[in-house]
């Protein structure tokens, strides 16, 4: 237990100061950044005047190009131009190979993970995403005229631990402070302001370029609860395009396409799809590999092609409703997200399944970024009277491997997070001092059918006869859906050390190396950045403790109060100087001193919360 900064409703902890925050929709096909200004959330335009930045990065030998400028390069320089990198986030090399026919780049293995060989060297998906994030953040800080205090980044609701971690690593690499990873559908519901005045079940149907998400949310007394999520991380508008590409290939008898011809076909397919949203049939004409191709596609033809894909999404809707223990007629509102929801067949099928007309008044491409901006504004502390609470669930079960390659579930899917669950293990040999644990995520019985998250080695177990040591391993999932693990031997209280080896993620050291190795940060910048991080943290601690003293000094005796004040003075002084390690030590010292105070405040605060609640009831 230690200090928690608790602001009473309607009263902010520190003097009010507007902070800069942005919401980022890091999409498969396009990415957007939005912010709240004068009370209104708006998508920001970059210097070229675009709201949507294509999630495309070209790695030339001399420079890195992000966005629209890189799109053209996708045709001329496909090997060095990374599109839809989101599909590769947190993915292993082997599992990515299954997709290779769609990917025109040189894939290589980087300690189990997938990476891409480019003219600018080897780049992994985290680095590519960091480029996109940095570009968007740059747009925001230029528009707002200052460095961002924090960002909210959206992720598909069912992103597993490795994918979420990779997203957070990318933000870190881009030098951004992540306030929260927010599920995309939750952001969409926030954008429609469904958190105020409404109560009931909301379904968010999100068909983007590369992913499909269905989320069932429940709103009750200002609280957002994600009842169930489902979807498919490899289904989206890109697949509609692929189906059209296959049709065009068939029409012109071109079974094999070069990388650049494929891009031409894809661009053409996309244009055809867009025209078919408003007309019953469309003609096309384009050239690829020196050949002139023309023909026509009817909407009926297109709908026949995509109908199985749309049906797949409706099946997922049915499954999610079932998971939530609901039927379609209990759904109050349906929100449409993602450019692919402009396809008439999709709208029809969704409306038919839920039995109500979906909400479409906000641009489906922007709705997620807008929701993220609203939440970022709240989390950064610009809205002290905020009453909304977002309760999320873990999208996939977490378990461990047991004898015979079977999974034992420790935290079942749809459990509300944050959550901590402990599991006890015992040694099976005399004098055993280490133990390996394999953590997996997924719903299937067999370990090989689930996704491997990490392997942990518990070391430093005190030598005891077989079965004598009882190791309690605690799995904790935070509000972002990220897992951390700790372990303790129960009879001796020895904290077993854990060596985490993420199966599809980067270790902390690797991330640190990438940051220091990146071209953006020369060595001195790196030192500066570390110092800045500690200073910001010191500032937060000072603010938190001062606010706590202001409201609850009565919980301390004179001696305790004097000691804490002394520590604060020291910390404030050190913060001004340039010694990173000294600041860090002073923060730890202050934290230690305030542990007990925090426990007392926590008890008081629980009582207050329940009392306040009882008053509400009267």
């Amino acid at each position, binding site marked *: *237990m*230690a*200090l*928690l*900064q*608790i*602001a009473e409703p309607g009263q902010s902890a520190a003097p009010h100061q507007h*902070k800069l925050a942005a919401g980022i929709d890091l999409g498969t096909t396009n990415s957007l950044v939005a912010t709240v200004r004068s009370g209104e959330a708006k998508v920001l335009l970059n210097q070229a005047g675009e709201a949507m930045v294509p999630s495309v990065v070209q790695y030339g030998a001399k420079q890195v190009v992000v966005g629209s400028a890189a799109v053209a390069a996708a045709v001329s320089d496909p090997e060095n131009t990374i599109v839809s990198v989101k599909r590769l986030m947190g993915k292993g090399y082997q599992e990515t190979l299954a997709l290779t026919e769609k990917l025109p780049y040189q894939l290589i293995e980087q300690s189990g993970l997938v990476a891409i060989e480019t003219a600018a060297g080897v780049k992994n998906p985290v680095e590519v995403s960091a480029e996109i994030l940095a570009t968007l953040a740059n747009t925001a800080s230029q528009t707002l005229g200052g460095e961002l*205090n*924090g960002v909210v980044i959206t992720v598909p609701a069912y992103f597993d631990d490795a994918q979420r971690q990779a997203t957070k690593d990318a933000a870190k690499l881009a030098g951004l402070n992540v*306030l*929260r990873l927010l599920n995309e559908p939750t952001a969409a519901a926030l954008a429609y302001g469904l958190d105020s005045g409404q109560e009931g079940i909301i379904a968010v149907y999100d068909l983007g370029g590369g992913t499909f998400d269905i989320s069932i949310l429940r709103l*009750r*007394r200002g*609280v957002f609860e994600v009842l169930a999520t489902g979807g498919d991380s490899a289904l989206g508008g890109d697949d509609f395009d692929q189906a059209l590409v296959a049709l065009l290939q068939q029409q012109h008898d071109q079974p094999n396409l070069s990388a650049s011809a494929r891009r031409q076909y894809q661009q053409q397919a996309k244009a055809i799809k867009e025209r078919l949203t408003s007309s019953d049939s469309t003609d096309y004409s384009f050239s690829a590999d020196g050949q002139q191709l023309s023909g026509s596609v009817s909407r009926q033809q297109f709908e026949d092609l995509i109908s199985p894909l749309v049906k797949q999404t409706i099946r997922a809707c049915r499954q999610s409703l*079932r998971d939530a223990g609901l039927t379609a007629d209990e759904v109050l509102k349906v929100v449409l997200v993602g450019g692919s929801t402009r396809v008439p067949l999709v709208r029809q099928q969704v409306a038919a399944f839920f039995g109500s007309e979906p909400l479409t008044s906000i641009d489906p491409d922007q709705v997620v970024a807008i929701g993220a901006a609203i939440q970022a504004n*709240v*989390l*950064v*502390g610009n809205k002290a009277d905020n*009453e909304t*609470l*977002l*309760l999320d669930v873990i999208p996939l079960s977490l378990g461990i491997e047991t004898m015979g390659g079977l999974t034992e579930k420790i935290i079942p899917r749809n*459990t*509300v*997070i*944050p*959550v*901590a*669950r402990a599991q*006890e293990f015992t040694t099976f040999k005399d004098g055993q001092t280490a133990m390996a644990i394999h953590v997996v995520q997924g719903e299937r019985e067999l370990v090989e059918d689930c996704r491997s998250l990490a392997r942990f080695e518990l070391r430093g177990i005190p030598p005891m006869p077989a079965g004598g040591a009882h190791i309690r391993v605690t799995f*904790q999932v*935070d*509000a972002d859906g990220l897992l951390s693990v700790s372990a303790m031997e129960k009879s001796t209280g020895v904290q077993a050390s854990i060596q985490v080896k993420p199966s599809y993620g980067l270790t902390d050291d690797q991330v640190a190396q990438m940051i220091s190795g990146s071209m953006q940060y020369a060595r001195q910048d790196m030192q500066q950045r570390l110092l800045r991080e500690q200073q910001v*943290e010191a500032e*937060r*601690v000072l603010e*938190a403790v001062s606010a706590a003293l202001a409201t609850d000094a009565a919980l301390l005796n004179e001696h305790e109060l004097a000691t804490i004040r002394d520590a604060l003075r020291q910390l404030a002084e050190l913060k001004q100087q340039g010694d990173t390690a000294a600041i860090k030590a002073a*923060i730890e010292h202050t*934290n230690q001193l305030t542990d007990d105070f*925090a426990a007392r405040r*926590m008890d008081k*605060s*629980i*009582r*207050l*919360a*329940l009392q*306040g*609640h009882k008053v509400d*009831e009267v």
Partner: protein
Amino acid sequence: MNYFQLFDLPEQFELDLAELGSRYLALQKRFHPDNYAAGSERDRLLAVQQTANINDAYHSLKHPLLRAEHMLALRGIKLSNEQRSFTDPAFLMQQMELREQLAELATVVDPEQALYDIEQELQQQRKALLRALHQALASGTAAQDQLAAELVRKLKFFYKLQQELELIEQQLQD
């Protein structure tokens, strides 16, 4: 940790779920890590731990079986993860029969009706066990606590059967 104390509720099996729910939300609103997104690193970590506790407590009190287990744990009887074989042959026989009925569901003439019948049967048995559990826990004597533990073990079978039944129901619908 005493979950009843956390929610400031009387330590008894009978529980107003709506009241528990609104107390849970009040605590969540106060401690959710989102309130500390701009706070210090340790405050965020502590908020995560605190809300994880609150979530766990809510989860344990909401479900009657877990609530009974928690009450018994507070009285020194630990039921979770116990490795114990059941010694009531009549009960085990009844369980086997119910299981056989479930297994045969796919082959009967009117599976919907059969399903409904079994569901009713399970529900009745469960209700009777829960009533007995309620009484045993209310008395508070050591002997009654042991009886309560035995009832919880039996109820576990019934909840498991119910889960399997729901799975079969889904398969039939598909």
